[in-house]
């Protein structure tokens, strides 16, 4: 009980810090940073779009690590496997939230800058594929009634993780509609103006902190559900033993 109270206080403090950081980062993006030289104010969409896009390529690796952990422990240590599975579902849901935001904010930007909502560009298509893989992952977890659901989901998360480097490198490998890389680019002309960097960095930190908080709370919720399911299973066994006596 003492441990859960400490964790609750820690989560609350993290929430306050994160909300303050989000407000600060949003203010930097909307007020402090100058309008983009080419795009004007609509370029401010990037302060939300880019951090969410970057993080939607980070959370799948957490999902992958947890899924591999589940596959490793499922026969060796079922309790650890349950923990890993809770982390896998938490990170998968948060990936889906971030990927959804990445796609929709990108479409809202594209409609203004390109005049179209969507194009079958390599980056957009590979990102849509990642989103669909995580939708499949969630549907599998929700509707599959076999005893192997967690194992099947863990294998699917490995396929999803394979798509992540393809999404990341797609704008290097195929030069199509999507803007070229802004960060970590080999092109000397690419990059962000110094006056825009604080807003970008603050938003990346803020939305990473928010994602960590969401994953932690969702993980705790899944652990609580697992504990209830275990209690219900134990009770059913005890009842059946009493019935046979």
């Amino acid at each position, binding site marked *: 009980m003492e441990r859960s109270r400490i964790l609750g206080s820690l989560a609350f403090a993290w929430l306050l810090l994160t909300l303050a950081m989000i407000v600060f980062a949003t*203010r930097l993006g*909307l007020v402090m940073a100058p309008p983009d030289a080419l795009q004007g104010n*609509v370029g401010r969409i990037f302060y939300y*779009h880019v951090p*969410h896009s970057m993080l939607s390529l980070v959370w799948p690796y957490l999902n992958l690590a947890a899924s591999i952990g589940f596959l490793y422990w499922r026969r060796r240590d079922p309790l650890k496997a349950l923990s890993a599975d809770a982390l896998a579902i938490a990170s998968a849901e948060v990936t889906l939230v971030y990927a959804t*935001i990445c796609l929709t904010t990108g479409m*809202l*930007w594209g409609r203004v800058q390109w005049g179209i909502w969507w194009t079958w560009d390599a980056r957009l298509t590979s990102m849509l594929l990642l989103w669909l893989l995580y939708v499949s992952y969630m549907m599998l977890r929700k509707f599959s009634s076999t005893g192997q659901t967690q194992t099947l989901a863990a294998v699917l998360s490995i396929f999803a993780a394979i798509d992540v480097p393809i999404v990341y490198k797609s704008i290097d490998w195929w030069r199509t509609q999507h803007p070229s890389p802004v960060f970590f680019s080999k092109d000397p002309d690419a990059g962000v103006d110094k006056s825009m960097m604080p807003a970008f960095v603050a938003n990346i930190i803020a939305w990473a902190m928010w994602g960590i908080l969401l994953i932690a*709370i969702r993980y705790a919720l899944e652990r609580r559900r697992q504990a*209830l399911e275990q209690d219900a299973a134990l009770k059913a066994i005890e009842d059946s033993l009493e019935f046979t006596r």
Partner: protein
Amino acid sequence: MNLSWMFGPSMEQRHLLYVYVLVWVVQGGYAAWVVWQWFRTKQEPRP
């Protein structure tokens, strides 16, 4: 903090506003769903 320039009829202004509102709604909505599930999932004291 004057943000009146965001609220206008042009597509640029509308889409910028939609993006910022959409992110807060989606992220806030998911967080609210998780918290609601947390309180709905009652933890019974173990014997």
